[in-house]
């Protein structure tokens, strides 16, 4: 009798946790896409919750401190760490991406303070959505500068 009760209780908790995980996953899933994939999907991705990464083109960085509007272009980099490694490491891949004019590029707009790590050949990881105008509107912007520091170079995030 007691045992049944405990098993029932356990199952209830299990069900609750599964429900919590499933519903939360669904509600907050972000599709991780590369610039190439975003360009290829075209209008299909408009409005979806997205996470994308790219190499920051230094010359394109514009910041308007009046409105705190930051705009810059990113060039395509592979989304997979293994691919990046195979192509010579993150620093090299980012450098290649920025110097290659044939790479797919995308404009990113973000409102907020300009992150400290934003510079040429940094890797930007943006969370947000693509609007009708083809611009990626980022709600959150993370930057990685892999070139010099192997150790936990921490985030500059803004959400």
């Amino acid at each position, binding site marked *: 009798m*007691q045992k049944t*009760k405990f098993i029932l209780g356990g199952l209830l908790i299990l069900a609750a*946790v599964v429900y919590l*995980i499933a519903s*939360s996953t669904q509600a*907050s899933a972000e599709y991780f*896409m590369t610039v190439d994939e975003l360009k290829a999907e075209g209008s299909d991705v408009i409005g979806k919750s997205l996470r994308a990464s790219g190499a920051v083109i230094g010359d394109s960085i514009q910041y308007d*401190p009046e409105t*705190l509007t930051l705009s810059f272009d990113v060039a395509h980099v592979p989304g997979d760490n293994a691919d990046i490694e195979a192509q010579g490491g993150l620093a090299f891949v980012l450098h290649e991406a920025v110097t290659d004019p044939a790479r797919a590029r995308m404009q990113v707009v973000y409102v907020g303070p300009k992150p400290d790590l934003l510079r040429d050949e940094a890797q930007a990881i943006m969370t947000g959505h693509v609007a009708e105008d083809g611009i990626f509107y980022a709600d959150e912007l993370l930057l990685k500068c892999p070139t010099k520091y192997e*150790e936990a170079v921490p985030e500059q995030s803004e959400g």
Partner: protein
Amino acid sequence: MLADFGYGVLVVTFILALYSVIIAINGERNKSAQMVESARRAQLLTFPLLSVAAGVLLYELITSNFNVSFVYEVTSRSMPTYLKVTAWWGGQSGSLLFWAWLLSAFTSAVTLRKWDRDREFLPWVIVVSSITLAFFLSMNIFFENPFARFWQTVQGIDAFTFKPAGGVPFAPQDGNGLNPLLRHPGMVIHPPTLYLGFVAYVIPFAFAIAALVTGRTDDRWTRLTRRWSLWAWLFLSLGLVLGGRWAYDVLGWGGYWGWDPVEIAAFMPWLTGTAFLHSVMIQEHKGMLKHWNMILIMLTYSLVIFGTFLTRSGVLSSVHSFAQSAIGPMFFGFIGATFITSVALLIWRWPELKSETEMKSMLSREAFFLLNNLLFLSVLVVCFWGVIFPLISELFTGQKVTVGPPFYERANTPLFGAMMALMGIAPLSAWGKSTLLTLGRAIWKPTIPALFVPVLAYFAGYTNWVALIGFFLVAFVIFVTLYDTVRSAQARQRAQKENFFTALGRLAGRNRRRYGGYLIHISMMLMAIGILGIELFQTETQGTISQGESLQLAGYTVEYKDVATWPDQGAGVQYTRSAVDVFKDGEYLGELNPRIDFYFDSQQTMTIPGQRSTLQDDLYILLVDWQPVSSVGATFKIYHNPLVNWLWVGSLLFIAGMFFAAWPDKDPSLRPVRASKQVTQTSAAD
């Protein structure tokens, strides 16, 4: 060369660690005390040897020998000496050595102090910790040598362990320097604190394995390692809090925790460790949950290694930039091998670990503890799912899908709420059997005032319903805990004819674990107030203002006075410091100085917030941008973080509670707990 000597010492230590593993196993098999003693001596040698290796590395760091590539990577000439020392754990290879050094120290402490008492377990403890030690040293020796030096060859300059053919030593003029973001007191002590916690968990795990191997399956191993798990847990918790404080002070986004995979990597062993801390009490009191405790400590060990691995490899995309190196697969292999071996041992001993009693009541203390364990494990599952979900989704759908902070917040909030409720109820329930009646009698009085708290909060303007439930639970736990303490002290006061405070002091002094635990529960509640405040009521504003103009937020007025900029060549930094006056409801509160520091060597800026902290709220001002000569002025971003300082106040109380619970008294680890519990006692007297 000195660096080569350091490397040689690592190799010798590695061989010694392997030797002590093999000889200890053989000694136990052949019942040879001599061999076991030899294993012990080999193990004891690893600590002085690793100290020598560490000393060599520190010497190279302090003297800025940039010929050593590690020194070049993590230090520069302009860094003060203390930062050069702490740069030891500022890079991958150095922190692996640091890990090994700590582990060797801990194991030596165990084998030196109580060798005779714990003779039956210690050979196996040596085996487990020496295997772990050998693994970390092998990472250093074969993949990430902290003593690798720069050599110039015809192919160019690169770091090698051994002199390449035709190589000429090369030493750069100056080093890269530690990332400015890491040059913060919080970052100086956060990694070692976390590592202390990580490494200390190896000891209880080693004892658990020793218990399985030797077949001594009673609760002796948990009692022997009780203090180790407490200290491990303390340092792990502290490491997490310090990391949060560092993020809050340095990263300039007005937050302290971002559900980043690296943060979660440190949080996951904390979850299983906390569950373990609770459930060993059931084993000690009731002889139940023996399998469960084994599983928990094995999980904790694996998660500790996994946590080290996650911060040290490129497996997941995180905001922390990961080191991409060959050690990832090695870590994965090691975790897999040790986990499978431990589980195999557990299955082998499964029948001998049967519970001594059965759970009788859903309302008993043990049932609540079990529930608490399930909740911790549920949070673990949520976190683990979130971390590996991108890998899973890619495997099954080919599309990489990630989940961000909203996932963790949404899924964990109800679980945290349930944990808080349990924290209030569980300590009042009795072992064995409680009924709704006895439990209700203990709880109803403090519940009533707790109900007023959300009502008051509502009228004070906190109208978010999650927050109101949260505030109720906080008040509930604190009131119930205090009520129970006072009631027990009064009972003692009457029985022993002491005055109230003597009674309270003696009561707490004799039940350190219980009342230390109470303090920790209360500190968690204070931290919860801070978390609720910043998560649910944070507001922000931003704007560009010229001198004399002001921004308003949450009753505060921030007036821009001035900005000055000057270089400090010695430190290699260009400072830009602004001055703003802060007023609240017309009253002048003082000046704050949000700053931007620009580091020349790394070409990186660092935004230092100006903070005004009270228990009520934090005003957190960032200087975002400024124009040297223009009327436009400067751009500020301001956060108002209500109640956030309770988070830090709570952490201080937490440390106090931890010391209270873990402070050594007369060898309590050997005090038989169950023997003195023959008489069924009420919870209050426990």
